[in-house]
């Protein structure tokens, strides 16, 4: 650490702090790593009593599915390259483009497609080399559950729905939220503050109450909207758009609080100067504030993304099977009449849905910290 000399620490303290951090990382990562291990084993192994069986997977090996030493090496290299690509290459490419929002969306999508292609066409053949050479596999490994989930059970449909809902929530939330957050940061009135406090109280509401309040209205919406909209009145139940609206509303309090404190850290002299030059408030916002607001918006956007992507209560109650997102779809794998195979499939699905989150944090980690540091949270 390159801090001032006076702050240099004793060896004991360094060691203690290092050990604490190591322990924390172990606790943080272990449960997730463990379900990953379960997801690549045959059902008997995945739920075996002996942890060694879960790790090594004798039944999976017996079925002729496993990884040998060279395979493990290939995988390690592949993962290292993935991390490097996501944390170094991708941000640099996006920064080169100069258009933050579009750059990130296109860049991330391109990265994912490239990665999938590499996994199938490069890693696939590489992992088959050892069978050709007759090297015996060491640990059980099978991707069949993933194939079953994504191809046979058509989990990709849920993925598409999730992408739709999540992007909708993030985009609408940020658009609506930046305007409100900006106005709230520039207005000192008691009314403005009253809105903020009310938003805070709204945030405290238990969601189950809200959602169950919607359900009857959503189901019968074509009846009570008919006087206004005529015969085209939609049934809101099962409409991803309605779910997006609900999630945006639920997320608004947090979004406007974060954005407000972020905008407060942008000196108001900036937009006032633009106003003196004859801009309207909106123009000042568009040309002066927008170019400098991205760190805060990206950080806030990540929280919206997490909410939309991870939500269970709202999506499970308000969407039906044909447009269900991934989380309720997984929960339905776990429901009371399932078999062990279903459960392993659910584990595989659960691991798959964490993958985009991994990528997200890997790519945006610096932006999160810098956005927060720049003042997205001031209490």
């Amino acid at each position: 650490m390159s801090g001032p000399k006076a702050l240099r620490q004793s060896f004991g303290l360094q060691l203690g702090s290092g050990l604490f951090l190591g322990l924390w990382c172990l606790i943080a990562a272990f449960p997730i790593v463990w379900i990953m291990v379960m997801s690549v084993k045959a059902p008997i192994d995945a739920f075996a009593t002996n942890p060694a069986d879960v790790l090594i997977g004798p039944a999976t090996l017996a079925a002729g599915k496993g990884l040998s030493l060279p395979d493990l090496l290939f995988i390690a290299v592949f993962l290292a390259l993935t991390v490097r690509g996501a944390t170094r290459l991708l941000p640099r490419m996006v920064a080169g483009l100069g258009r933050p929002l579009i750059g990130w969306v296109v860049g991330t999508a391109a990265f994912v497609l490239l990665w999938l292609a590499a996994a199938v066409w490069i890693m696939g053949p590489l992992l088959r080399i050892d069978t050709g050479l007759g090297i015996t596999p060491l640990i059980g490994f099978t991707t069949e559950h993933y194939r079953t989930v994504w191809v046979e059970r058509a989990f990709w449909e849920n993925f598409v729905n999730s992408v739709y809902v999540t992007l909708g929530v993030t985009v609408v939330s940020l658009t609506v939220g930046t305007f409100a957050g900006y106005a709230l940061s520039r207005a000192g009135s008691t009314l403005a503050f009253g809105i903020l406090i009310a938003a805070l109280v709204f945030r405290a509401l238990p969601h189950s109450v809200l959602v169950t309040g919607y359900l009857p209205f959503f189901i019968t919406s074509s009846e009570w909207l008919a006087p206004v909209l005529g015969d085209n009145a939609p049934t809101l139940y099962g409409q991803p758009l309605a779910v997006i609206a609900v999630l945006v509303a639920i997320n608004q309090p947090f979004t406007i609080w974060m954005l407000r404190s972020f905008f407060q850290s942008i000196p108001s002299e900036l937009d006032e100067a633009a106003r003196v030059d004859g801009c309207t408030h909106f123009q000042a916002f568009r040309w002066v504030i927008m170019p400098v607001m991205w760190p805060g918006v990206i950080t806030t956007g990540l929280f919206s993304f997490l909410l939309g992507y991870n939500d269970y209560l709202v999506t499970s109650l308000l969407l039906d099977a044909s447009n269900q997102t991934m989380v309720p779809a997984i929960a339905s794998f776990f429901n009371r009449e399932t078999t062990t195979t279903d459960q392993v499939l659910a584990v595989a699905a659960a691991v798959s849905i964490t993958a985009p989150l991994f990528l997200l944090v890997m790519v945006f980690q610096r932006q999160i910290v810098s956005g927060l540091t720049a003042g997205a949270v001031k209490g």
Partner: protein
Amino acid sequence: MKTRTFAAFVAPSLVMMLIFIAAPLLYVFGQSFYLTTPVTEQMTVETCTPGFLTQNCTQETKSLPKLDEAGRIVTQTQFVGFGSYRAIIEPAKAWAAISTFDYRALMAIDFWRALRFTLMFTFVTLPLVLLVGLGVALAVNNTARTLRGPVIFVSLLPFIITPVIGALAIRWLFVSDGLLNNGLEWMLGHPVSMFSQGWTIEILMMFYRVWHVAPFAFIILYAGLQTLNHDALEAAMIDGASRWQRLRYVIVPHLMPLIIFVTLIHLMDAYRVFDEVVGFRAEAHVISLQYLTYDFLIPDSTGNRSISRAAASSMLTMVGILILLIPLLRRTWAQHRGSR
């Protein structure tokens, strides 16, 4: 900023909150004072259902709801005042239990049982979340720059992972033959069942919550540490402040607004604890206030919901949260007044 411009900027956000949060809230508030029941009549009906080979027909006397001409169930709504609230709190029974110091009798009432757990959950996890978050933030800040990236990544995992899945991952580790449960059995030398008694389930639920939320506290506080003024630290150093004193008098005050922010968010989230109860199948041993509401709301298999009692119980939950938040809200309000 003129009021009209302000209104135009804030309107979309405000309208969404009013429609999707305030309106249901008012509706629920109103519902808690009324009781809607279907009008029923007694009828004797013959029902025939299948056995494996033959049919079983039985004559049953049932209470069936009356239908009007349009085929809808006829209902009657009556004003019950605080009746539903009384049905939940059971004030007479609760008072009798309190005045005789009968803890078990008090805990036999669902509301008080849920309140006890909810409060305990909130106040045990809060300091733990803050401490772990602060500890990790300081440790990460203390570590070599090259290591920070990976460490932050790993630290954030529990926070970003889908809660339903995170809870399952932890449950599997501790369920009867889970890895960590076996580890515990090996260490203690006797069989352990984490999910067979209330207090172990409570510990696991709290562990999960701290695991899940501490990274949020960590990342916020870590960002705060980046803006820490090193001059202040050095000045304290020159004044002879020990490491502990520097933490106590320089770093923590600097982070105070962030600590309060995390506290605020955590109080709200912890008070409506719900996912853990369902995820850990704790309902036999431990329930929370939001679970109580949910339980009233979910129709049983014959389609009945106790809307009135659910509304009352959610209102009680609301009141509880407000009481907890008032000190923090007052502080924020005072700051706002002062800053003008």
